[in-house]
Each structure stands twice: as structure tokens, then as C-alpha cells.
């Protein structure tokens, strides 16, 4: 197994790293870039809590080698909104009390944001589809769907 030089952009910043062939993107993001909002639930692609947005698509970072992320643009929850200026999905999740233990929420926000980036007027079914790869074991999905619908409304009103 060799080492590889990889370059990628995370949350707007370029990183150049030497990674092992078998090092997962998840571990690089958490342990080397200290982005702890990326969670490891199952580590086998079944729970989606490690999801990040890569070049505009949702991917599970536990199922990707760091070398496969070369030259990509990656967005983690740390790059979405600020304390002062939350993203509409974050704001709506708070309003609807849609988070309980919070473990799935970073991935859930990214799944919601990614959907709204591509489709600002999704149907309930489209929202359910978009978040279907991220498991929540606390609250169920009702409030999450409601919140994403409200966020969509806010985004549409702002863009008019």
C-alpha cells in the first residue's frame, strides 16, 4: 500500500495532503481536518450520517477513499451557515424542533440543502426521497420533511 498526494477543496479551502491508499475520506475529514460534524454511524453506507456534498451531489464519506476525492469540492456541515446567519434548512429544523439526539442532523441538513440547491420547489415525496439515505432513529421524519418544506419556501421568497 502506498502513499498518495491528493489535493481537494473542503468548505472553500484548498488542502494538499499525503494519504494512505486505504484511508477513507471520512477519517481524513474527521481526524486530520478536525471536521467532527461528519459522523461515523455504521461505517458501511447504511446510515448516511457521514454524508457530505461533493461537487453538488450527496455522497457517503465512509464509502469513499480519500484518493477518490482528489480535485473535488467538498462541503461539510462546518461550511453551511454561521451562528449568526444560519442556512434556511438549519433555521427551519430549529423552528420545528426537528432534532432530538442530533447525530443525524449534520447529514440531514446537507441532504436538505443539496436538494434545495437543485430543486427549490420540491414535493413532499421528493423531500422524502432526498433524505432517504440518512437515518434518524429519534424523531421520525415528519418534522424533518415539514422543516425542509418551510426552508424551500424561505429560499424561494428570498430569490424573488
Amino acid at each position, binding site marked *: 500500500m502506498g502513499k498518495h498526494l491528493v489535493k481537494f477543496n473542503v468548505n472553500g479551502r484548498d488542502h494538499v495532503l499525503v494519504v494512505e*491508499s486505504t484511508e477513507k475520506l471520512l477519517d481524513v475529514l474527521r481526524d486530520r481536518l478536525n471536521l467532527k460534524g461528519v459522523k461515523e454511524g455504521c461505517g458501511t453506507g447504511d446510515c448516511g450520517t457521514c454524508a457530505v456534498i461533493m461537487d453538488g451531489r450527496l455522497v457517503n464519506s465512509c464509502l469513499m477513499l480519500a484518493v477518490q476525492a482528489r480535485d473535488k469540492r467538498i462541503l461539510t456541515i462546518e461550511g453551511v451557515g454561521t451562528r449568526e446567519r444560519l442556512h434556511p434548512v438549519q433555521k427551519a429544523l430549529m423552528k420545528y424542533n426537528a432534532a432530538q439526539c442530533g447525530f443525524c442532523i449534520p447529514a440531514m441538513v446537507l441532504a436538505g440543502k443539496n436538494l434545495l440547491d437543485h430543486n427549490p420547489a420540491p414535493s413532499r415525496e421528493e423531500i422524502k426521497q432526498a433524505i432517504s439515505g440518512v437515518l434518524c432513529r429519534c424523531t421520525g421524519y415528519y418534522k424533518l420533511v415539514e422543516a425542509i418544506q418551510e426552508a424551500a419556501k424561505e429560499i424561494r421568497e428570498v430569490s424573488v
Partner: protein
Amino acid sequence: MSLDDALSYLEQNPSDTLPIAGSTDLLPRIKRKQVSVGNLVDLSGLSELRYVKPEDDKIRIGALTTIADLEAQLNDTAWGKILNDAARKFGSPNIRTVATVGGNICAASSSEDLIPVFLVLDASVRTIRKSGTREMPLQEFLVEKRKTALYGDEILAEVSFPEPSAHSACSFQKLGMRNTLILALVSVAAFLETDETRSKITCARVALNRLKRKIPQRAERVEKELLGQKLDEATINSAVKRLGDELALTSDYRASADYRCEAAKVLFRRALMDCWDSIARK
């Protein structure tokens, strides 16, 4: 890295090197220590093997086409609809972004949703290595569970199938414990073609994720039963009964053999009804 570089590397290290693309199947298996690898060759960036194109009465799909690519393919043909439908039932959106058609076929197990679909589309595969290419029917490529006909220095390059005629229809039915992120307990794919009167069956292909072995297979006796028959309820009833005779499923912690058999018959009936409905509406 180019495709040629990848093939050269495989030629020099054929015994301990595995090609990876989406890695959604391989990484969990490495984590669970079900497979050990020396070296990996990452194919995921090779865009020359990522395409869906009709060409000379055939539909050609590059091995690195992602499941999300199939989901984005919206065309009203029989093959377009079944591939789109199978893609939507596949894994989860996060998985579909990176998982590939070639990876699904090469994984060669009953959990791979695309294999029954390609079997009923009468697909062939093209493999490549440094010293040349081979083409063979998909059935021949799938040797047994988790084993394909690939040589150590070879990769799957393309899957292709003849363009179905205007009087044909396909259907894919999958049953899992829930809709997303689930391996199929049972899945059934069916292809029916009729004559111009839309009543007599001139070609029938049926494949299940499991029939007698733990790998997708065609149900050839059921296909023979359907061939030449009138497309009606009586024919469907007798085909469903015949499938029941042909099934030899086993129990495991996910479902009993009896449940799987009953479910397979129900899904098979739905698949045939769905095909009938599509043909009647053409």
C-alpha cells in the same frame, strides 16, 4: 491515470490487485474483513467508460456509468423505463451518486438489483485487458456467488443489449423490508414481446435474484411455458404456478424459504401484469 495505465498496472500485478470504482460494495467488505486486498486500482475517474448510448440496434452502457446516471436517464422506451425504475429502487441517493453499473454486475450476488434487469434484457458484457477484449453473455460472465469470469488483469468495460422491439415491455419488482437502503429479499424482472396483434407472446425472459442458487438466474422453464401463448390471465396464472415448481429457495435470518417463494410468485404476477398493461397501452 488513464485506462491504459490502469490496465498496465493490472497486467503487472494480476494476483493481488482489485479494481474499484464506486467502492460502495468493496469498502464495507474490507471493513468486515470478508475480503483482503493487496493493491487497489481506482477506476472511478475514467469518464471514457461512462456512457449510455444506442448504437447499431444495441444499447451500450459503460461500466463506470453510475446508478444516478441511470436515474437521470428519462426515456419512454421499455429499456429506459426498467433501468430508471431499478435505479430508483437501488440503495439510497447517497449510494447511487457513486455506485456503478459495472460494480453492481461484478459484485455477482443476489443483492445486485441490476443483474436480473440486464438478464431479461438479454445483455452481453465486454471485458478488456492489456492483451485484448472478450465479449460474452452476462449469464456466462456470472460464474457463481461473488465469482465472475474476469481474469486477474481484466476489467468489465461495457454491458450491452439488443434494443427491444416496439411490441415489448419490461418490469422490475423488488421486495425488501423497507423502500430505501435495503437488499432485496426477492426481486423479479420480466421481459415480454408480442406479435403485432399484441396478443401472442413471441419472446419471454424472466430472471430472479435467486432461483435455485444464491445468484441471479433466468427461469428458463417458465420462459418456455410463456413462449407462443396468448397474453391473457390464464397464461399468467399457469406461468406463476410453473415458477412455484421451479423455485428452490433457502431460509436465512432475513426470511424463510416459504415466505420467499410466496413473495416471488406475487412479484412475478405483478411483473407480468405490468408488462401486459404496458403492451396493451402502446
